């Protein structure tokens, strides 16, 4: 399916990006170029091939359930665009 301005708007919303109407057509064209290239994947015979998410067959390591990280709240808040009383500050979400 080809991407048009409507699909761009939907996907942009999913990704929380703002796309200007003026750029939407050109962006659709570029995305369609990319998807046309990606469509070569349809040539492959993938019958009975398990998807591979990781190059090496390893499992996630486990560790003891103990506190191992230091408390870095102040360091983390220092680099926040807006913080107050030990919290990140965002526009009001609950009236």
């Amino acid at each position, binding site marked *: 399916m080809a991407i048009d301005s409507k699909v761009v708007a939907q996907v942009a919303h999913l990704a929380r*990006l703002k796309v200007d109407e003026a750029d939407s057509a050109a962006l659709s064209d570029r995305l369609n170029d990319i998807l046309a*290239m*990606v469509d070569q*994947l349809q040539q*492959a015979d*993938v019958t009975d091939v398990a*998807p591979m998410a990781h190059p090496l067959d390893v499992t996630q390591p486990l560790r003891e359930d103990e506190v191992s990280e230091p408390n870095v709240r102040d360091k983390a808040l220092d680099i926040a665009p807006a913080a107050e009383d030990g919290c*990140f500050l965002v*526009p009001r979400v609950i009236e």
Partner: protein
Amino acid sequence: MSNAMHNKTLTELKAGLAAGDFSSRELTEHFLARIQQHDGELNSFITVTAEQALAQADAADQAIATGNTGLLTGLPIAHKDIFCTEGVRTSCGSKMLDSFIAPYTATVVEKMAAEGAVMLGKTNMDEFAMGSSNETSYYGPVKNPWDLERVPGGSSGGAAACLGARLAPGATGTDTGGSIRQPAALNNITGLKPTYGRVSRWGMIAFASSLDQAGPMAQSADDCALMLQAMAGHDHRDSTSLNEKVDDYLGALNNDIRGLTIGIPEEFFPDTLDGAIADNSRDAIRELEKLGAKVVSVSLPSVKLSVPAYYVIAPAEASSNLSRFDGVRFGHRCDDPKDLEDLYKRSRSEGFGDEVKRRILVGAYALSAGYYDAYYRRAQQVRRLIRDDFARAFEKVDVLMGPTAPETAFKLGAKKDDPVSMYMADVFTIGVNLAGLPALSMPTGFINGLPTGTQIIGNYFREGQILNVAHKYQQATDWHKQAPVFGGEQ
């Protein structure tokens, strides 16, 4: 003045420091002066950390005086601006992180500092490592020192260009689809992408987590071995870091390569390939035959689907990884958001450049309901076919070789508005990332005054063997010793 300090390899500089020919302070001042003199033209650094560098150099001189040295004591290194460095801006080439001062230091940087390395600064790169020309950087493109009208490749283009121009003797890079090897080829330097999981990703800003891997970039293979020796190893803070013994890369450099079997994948020499590119790589392989290697032909039929598989998997992972940049906790935040959604959308749209946005959109599309099976699942199935092709080849051969990049450095702007044509710059490098294998690019001659590179791909954890083969080649040739006539001197 070819015996100037900046033309020496890390290995030579290390010997010079040990012999007392110069101090780390003199060495560091020399490179800082070269950066100041020449980087205005190149734009290979985003941040130069002169003060810290000199302090580290003085500490290194003390360590040398007391005989308390590590692998890299006193050697100046430039870090790609994707590695977090506490107290120093870590921009990842993006407006999003233009004012981000990392609150902690990446394992790679920490390990190299622990071995005595001196950090010169942070190198320019494609935004969030997405690009093959360094033109997507918020800080402007890097220029190729061999021709200032051409790109240095990407995404570790700043690292490769500063090495090529001899503004630093060693640099770190990262490689998700070719971002160490392709710029290494275009700037006549040596660069290694290790096995996935060999080097810690902790503190390295994530692009595509199942593909990203950090590695060394330098003039020569022995220098890459020295750097990798310091970089590699298990890190409990990175759950994908592998708990495998680190080999003695330096010790393996001079191993005999008689009887080594080199596989030549026919897919790396397609009919459409520029004949001069093919010739340079074939000449390099012939040189290794003279040193006693055997050559056989192999086929990797699914590897031709590497680029399409990558451009589903990498954007999908990127769309997830980059969701953390939301204007709330760190990074760019828009002015006067009217509500939370406006805050997210405007902060992200202002902070990200066009290529990053394109990849986030492709990834979000490929992962969205109704398209997941056709794109993401299928790409992961093809990824397994590609890995299996490599595994079959490595039953018969020790290493695989072919050109690193399909062309020499192209003109700035030539592919800027054509993403698909830009993506093809990594046609020979991407398969290695999908399979998770180690691979190195080394200089193997010129075309019209522009460098070309040849790739050596090894089996999992065979970095030592790859470096050994490259080192033997470099002992027999001097392509890697060529430096551009830059700023009226050599």
